[in-house]
């Protein structure tokens, strides 16, 4: 796969990014980065249960959408969803607590890392079966369209997901119904361990397929938070106004393995190093300095995020394990699990 990213024709340089927004983009990327790193440290301390899929290296996408979205918009993400959930404002202690199987977890320990959800912040679930959440996002968009609320559903997924049937059905369905949904393919070049080019008939798994749904082909640099932000604003604005869905391919790279269990030995020599140079947090920091923000401002942000992560960690660590009552709770809306009288 050629990972050079052409500038897409609709990059909307006219979308101005103000200084406050730029700081917020940086702050959020740092927050996602530090929190994922903390999650990783907590594995090493054996405090995280089950699996975990980090977004290290991919933060620009979740952060840019987090900043661009309206509070009442909806996020749908995958098992690799810590960043997307946090980016909507979910409690960090809730996220870390859930990874650790604690009572304070967003899901009270019932969902785990792969199912982070915070409905009050519009994070409408993390879905662990490839492709399943694409039609669900379409359905949320349908409900916004039906009620005329101008909300947008944003749906994140990986390159590998473009080869499953639900991708195809959802894109066609959304296009035909002109739904306000933005599909964001984070192309990090790999499914679990298999390079995407080995299993995909086109070079760009999402962008090269947009035309099959009558959509514009959008291919952007997923490590450039500004590029993602501009594209997000443009696509969401159009969707809100009834212009229908968008499919964005944002090229990026994950710094760590697919999941906790993966040392990522399948990567060719030098690939990681090359991508570390294009680390989104690093790039953005340099850009801000270049734009005249001071080192001090950035360090303040970093220090504040560190504090936040430390605090969240402390809360999560102090939280007890969930009560066993939870096992038979919340299957049904009455709060219980009874299947009989």
């Amino acid at each position, binding site marked *: 796969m050629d990972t050079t990213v052409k500038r897409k024709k609709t990059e909307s340089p006219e979308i101005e990014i103000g200084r406050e927004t730029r700081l917020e983009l940086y702050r959020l990327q740092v927050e996602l980065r530090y929190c994922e790193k903390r999650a990783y440290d907590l594995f090493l301390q054996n405090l995280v249960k089950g699996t975990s899929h980090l977004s290290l290296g991919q933060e620009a996408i979740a952060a840019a959408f987090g900043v661009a979205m309206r509070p009442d918009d909806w996020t749908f993400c995958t098992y690799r969803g810590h960043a997307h959930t946090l980016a909507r404002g979910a409690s960090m202690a809730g996220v870390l607590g859930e990874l650790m199987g604690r009572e304070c977890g967003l899901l009270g320990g019932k969902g785990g890392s792969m*199912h982070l959800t915070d409905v009050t912040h519009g994070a*409408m679930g993390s879905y662990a*079966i490839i492709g399943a959440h694409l039609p669900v996002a379409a359905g949320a968009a349908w409900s916004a369209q039906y009620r005329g609320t101008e909300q947008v559903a944003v749906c994140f997924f990986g390159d590998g997901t473009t080869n499953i049937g*639900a991708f195809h059905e959802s894109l066609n369905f959304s296009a035909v119904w002109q739904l306000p949904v933005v599909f964001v393919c984070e192309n990090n070049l790999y499914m679990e361990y298999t390079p995407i080019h080995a299993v995909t008939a086109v070079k760009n798994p999402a962008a090269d397929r947009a035309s099959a749904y009558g959509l514009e082909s959008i291919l952007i640099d997923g490590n450039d938070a500004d590029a993602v932000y501009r594209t997000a604003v443009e696509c969401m604005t159009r969707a809100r106004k009834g212009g229908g869905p968008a499919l964005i391919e944002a090229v990026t790279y994950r710094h760590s393995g697919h999941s906790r269990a993966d040392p990522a030995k399948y990567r060719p020599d030098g690939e990681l190093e090359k991508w570390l140079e294009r680390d989104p947090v690093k790039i953005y920091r340099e850009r801000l300095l270049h734009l005249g923000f001071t080192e001090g401002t950035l360090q303040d942000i970093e220090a504040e995020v560190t504090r936040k992560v430390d605090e969240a960690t402390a809360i999560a660590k102090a939280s007890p394990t969930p009560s066993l009552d939870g096992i038979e709770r919340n299957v049904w*809306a009455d709060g219980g699990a009874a299947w009989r009288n």
Partner: protein
Amino acid sequence: MAELTYRDAVAAGIAQEMERDERVVFLGEDVAAAGGVFKATVGLLEKFGPRRVRDCPISEQAILGATMGAAMTGLRPIAEIMFSDFLAVCWDIVANEIAKMRYMTNGQIQLPLVIRTANGAGSRFGAQHSQSVENWAMAVPGIKVVAPAFPADVKGLLAAAVRDPDPVLFFEQKSLYAMKGEVPDGECIDELGKANVLRSGKDCTIVALAAMVHRALGAAEILEKEHGISCTVVDVRSLVPLDTRTILSEVVKTGRLVTVEENPRLCGWGAEVASIVTEECFWDLDGPIVRITTPHVPLPSADQLEDNTIPSVERIVREIRQKID
């Protein structure tokens, strides 16, 4: 009371709920302009317009996924999956997404939705269009499962399903669509999770579902008149929640249980009922539990083959005479 067919009771139930609640929307393949391939939704498009009654592409995953997404954001959608066999192409959305969402999110997400589907044999459609798959759904925690046998139940249970805050899989029996029955006038609303005792006897309790209810009633009639065997007939109506109280108390009264299932034998709902009964009222049983089911084969299509595969009135009579006495 008006006389309605089972199929018209479907349309009437949906219409009643759509009139009542603007959040109720309806989607599926060929359901709007054409009124459904079983003509069970004729007139809805005309009454409620294309914004609320929508034709879909052949994309069952998209249909049920969209249903789920709409339900979690404030609508109360009703989706049609044309034949229950096709649940297999969207089984992930049913079994892994819809059924588990509330639990996994510890109650954050609520899914008030209904999936209607045409279930069962009798139309010579062959193995891919005739299955009774209610047991697939019953095996998955988190989804309610309803299967009415009478037009009045169709309307009342459908309304109850739409108003229920949890997802409901609503099995309509293909072979019953043309059946007529009395349906109460005015608003009609039933309760999920209640079995009905349709006939009381003293020798044996027959528990049946959907099309098999009618065959059980036919058999009970013959057994009583011609063989002096008096049977209770229980219409289960709802597999989840399951009205074990009614079933157990009726079994205790007769001391014998026979289930009549249209599904192939293995892991049918009757197995579950049998296991509950032997676990909880073993000492009240006067003899073995008998399950009358379709043999464990895919369904053949030719008329005589199909008729001799699913349980018939004659077979029910014969097996009960042989095994209960």
